[in-house]
């Protein structure tokens, strides 16, 4: 079992090779990994309002966007503020061979 903390989502930075015209770089994407019943849930850190980076606020147990004040629950639902949709769920699965958690960004 992939070891995730139970009391809060795990903020993972996923790096992949990214080509942008002539410029190749190591792109980094933030996803929140969390337990979801017996399985896992991965949420994109991009606010669905205008794309700022939301972060987990441990004190209020919610995701908060620093730009226009969007608030999401731990499962990604919109709690308040301007976001038009829940945080986007990123496909995640456990690789049966390696037992690694694999995220598709």
């Amino acid at each position, binding site marked *: 079992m992939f070891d995730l903390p139970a009391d809060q989502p795990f*903020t993972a*930075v996923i*790096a992949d090779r*990214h080509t*942008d*015209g*002539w*410029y190749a*770089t190591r*792109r*980094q*994407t*933030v996803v929140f990994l969390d337990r979801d019943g017996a399985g896992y849930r991965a949420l994109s850190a991009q606010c669905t*309002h*205008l*794309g*700022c*980076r939301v*972060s987990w606020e441990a004190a209020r147990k919610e995701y908060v966007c*620093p*730009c*226009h*004040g969007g608030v999401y629950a731990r499962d990604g639902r*919109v709690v*308040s*503020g*301007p*976001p*038009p949709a829940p945080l986007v769920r990123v496909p995640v699965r456990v690789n049966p061979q390696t037992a690694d958690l694999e995220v598709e960004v």
Partner: protein
Amino acid sequence: VRRLAAWLDERAGIRMLRRHLLDEPLPAGTGWLFTLGSVILFGLAVQTITGIALALYYAPTPDHAWDSVRFITTGVRGGAFLRGLHHWGASIIVVAVVLHLVRVVFQASFRTPRELTWLAGLLLLLIVLAFGLTGYLLPWDQRAYWATVVTINIAQLTPVIGDAMAAVLRGGPGIGALTLTRWYAAHVLVLPAALAALVGVHLYLMRHHGITGPVRPRPGPSRSFYPFQAARDLAMSGVIALVWIALASLAPPSLEPPADPTASDYVPRPEWYFLGLFQLLKFFPGRWEVIGAIVLPGVAFTWLALLPWIDRGGSRDWRTRRLALSGFVAFGLGAVALTVAGALDRPARATEEWTIQEQAGTVLIAGDACVRCHAPGRVAPPIEPGRIGRPADWLAMHVEDPTALALGLREAPPGNQHDRAAIVAALARLRAGRPPPLDAAASQIAVLFSRHCLRCHKMDRVGGSEGPDLTHAGRNGDAAQIERRIADPPSVDPNAEMPAFGDKLTVEEIRVLAAWLAWKR
């Protein structure tokens, strides 16, 4: 000189040009209110010159943009002042353009036959704002990056053509190298060309119709532009120049940490002249967001554009035009209120104090382990606040095992996991700014506490939860009692689970820790 002038006049008609420029007839009573156009022209000229000077040094690529701007501010003689002028120029021009617009609206200077002058002026306002927006992407710092993310997402909300607009603005699959070159091209090629053309049209139309002059025509013959109005224009531009120089030298623009899509400690805020729009976006939840982002600004702008047709006929005196003007005043007050609300709305996170762990990290970074490689002239660059471009996960790996990422250079410095955690925490914080100054005693306490206590105890929200929170340790005992508790816990509380530190720390170390904890009330 006279012969040269005659020669030039014969071939280029310079005397006629001079007469045309200086002898513009102005209605009697034209005064200071009519200097704003000249101030804007003066501002645009300074922006052109400082912009060319900045372009000599600037490199529009994600790898180099931030470094080149940093070089301009620290490595080029007068570079910080130059950048200050260009930065503040944007604000000064926005203010002057808005005041010019207010003057024109209150005096109804847009009325027939000057509708086209008015429309050209409104387009110029949009171009000035577009200059501001494209300009502050260029340093490729955090503010630049997030302002661009939000701008492009707003463009995407536009009905029907939104996706196409966003794709044009972005250039590539995401915001990156191709966005930067695009916005640079817009800022230095497309917008200046559009600006020059529209300024030409605006000035031609202004001369063609003559200026409107005071609302109630004064008796007396018209005067030529030179010398009196020219002197007013010059004096006004001179005052603006002084303010401008003062701003550029006393309040130089900041350069935030390099753009980092993963950073969670950054609170994005736009330049002040976009704060109103920024604040407006907060009031429209869910699928109404297009109203705040596109519809309301669009309606307001369309109303402004149609003013010459809405507010026509009758006297130019404001007292007879209450309806049109109250609409304009309401719009203006709304914009001011939103801007103020946007400026006041700063999440508390941005100003948090440095935690004890972060403080310990800065002390450790300045110590031997890091400095033996990271110093001027050594294998790695010095570690400087605001100059850390590596992502957090890279830093964590590097601190864990420096040789894994810098192969074959040195063996990893000794250190325990608590010190490494402190260093990683401090590096994350150092991206954004300077640490607070710490004297020798405070440095020692920070490192001791971070190394030995944080695993089980919390202090200012960080740390483990096995032991009690020590943020207010001084409320539960004096220094002597705390000292005994650290050295030999059962001597104070027979049931204590805390291990004794009497053999791990020196007597002196325990004494300073206890004195400090007793002071935390």
